[in-house]
């Protein structure tokens, strides 16, 4: 087999390129010890790989590279007590400048991918396990706010269970309506200027009783009974469907 440079001599450029270390790093290099093992040239790549099994058990990284005279392994961050396995003719320790090898990049990429999948799974599981908001049918009544507050604002949006709704003060009465358009489910808006509810999707217009004044909706808006109880506006469950 050919000659192999000792620790003090520069590494062959092919080896440097092969390990992927960025030798042109602009930061002052922090030396990283690495062991270079030269295998018996009679070994095949599979046999050399098998010899490196014990390394991965210790959590060490090794890469096998072909050089003209056979195979070498570069063991990154080799601890001082690391003994080369049988089948290694010669070993030497060198200080490699730090950098991001392909292996490290792939490790980091795979780890962050796995962490992302696990984290989003855990987040989804937490959402699933938290008790759901009750449906419209499970709610008896909702206290929207004080009568004075709603009169001052003119209207107030709220949710009856999951259903987005609005309560509107008109004269001395309050009207509570679902804001889900009966046409395709867009959210209608209360427009104080015209005293109507308008759907932005298909220009449907409803009055305060929920009746369709204009546009394609097949049914009126869903309305809810409202009562004022001790100055609070309370929206109750709808009796008719």
């Amino acid at each position, binding site marked *: 087999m050919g000659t192999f440079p000792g620790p003090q001599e520069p590494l062959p450029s092919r080896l440097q390129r092969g390990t992927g270390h960025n030798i042109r790093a602009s930061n002052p290099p922090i030396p990283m010890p690495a062991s270079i093992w030269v295998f018996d040239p009679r070994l095949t790549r599979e046999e050399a790989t098998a010899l490196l099994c014990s390394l991965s*058990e*210790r*959590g060490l990284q090794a890469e096998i590279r072909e050089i003209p005279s056979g195979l070498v392994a570069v063991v990154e961050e080799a601890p001082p007590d690391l003994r080369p396995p049988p089948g290694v003719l010669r070993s030497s320790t060198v200080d490699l400048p730090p950098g991001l090898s392909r292996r490290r990049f792939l*490790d980091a990429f795979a780890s962050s991918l796995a962490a992302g999948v696990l984290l989003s799974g855990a987040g989804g599981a937490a*959402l*699933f396990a938290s008790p759901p908001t009750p449906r419209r049918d499970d709610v008896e009544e909702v206290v929207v706010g004080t009568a004075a507050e709603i009169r001052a604002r003119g209207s107030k949006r709220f949710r009856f269970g999951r259903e987005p709704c609005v309560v509107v003060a008109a004269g001395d009465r309050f009207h509570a309506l679902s804001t889900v358009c009966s046409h395709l489910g867009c959210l209608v808006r209360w427009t104080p200027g015209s005293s109507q509810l308008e759907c932005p999707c298909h220009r449907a217009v409803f009055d305060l009783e929920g009746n369709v004044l204009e546009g394609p909706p097949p049914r009126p808006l869903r309305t809810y009974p409202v009562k004022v109880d001790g100055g609070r506006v309370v929206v109750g469950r709808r009796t008719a469907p």
Partner: protein
Amino acid sequence: MIGSALRAWMSRPTAPRESLLRDLGRLAVLLFGVEVVTGSLLALYYEPVPEAAYRSVGTITGTVTLGWLVRSLHHVTGHALLVVVALFLARAFLLRSFLRPAGRRAWVLAVGLLFLAIAFLMTGSALPWDQEAYWRTVITANLVSGIPLLGGWLADVFRGGPEVSGTTLVRLFALHGLVFPWLAFGGLLLARRFRRQGGMP
């Protein structure tokens, strides 16, 4: 420590150009893990009572946040698991790995796991307890009662009585959520050992 263990696991050497089909077993383990996680989540809401079972499944898909996703995942992964185990067996059959001395019991184990996957699907599809589930359970019980000698007794054990009833639903749930998962877990541990001994294809 976790980091170095993970790194060791990720950088373990493999033969070059290894067939992806070698990973069917690992894929089955991964899918089983998904089933365990999603199944445990579904069990948070499912009620194995005839009056409440169908409604609770509706609650999961309709009301619970991401419930539709968890239930679909559980459903689809269950079927995918059956496909993967079947592919695994087909590969073992074509490679004739059961002819090796260590491969014989591995083959038997793999066939057992295939039947277990089918049993998972049969019990799981009955849990919503709608008309289809009820009649399917009746048919399953009749199938079981056709087994020679022990069939009648086994069918009674499966039904929890002479008729398919609410007791049957509780038993289906216990089989699907407790008994079969532990069986599968043990089977997969055994499969790992067989694989290390070179038996598993």
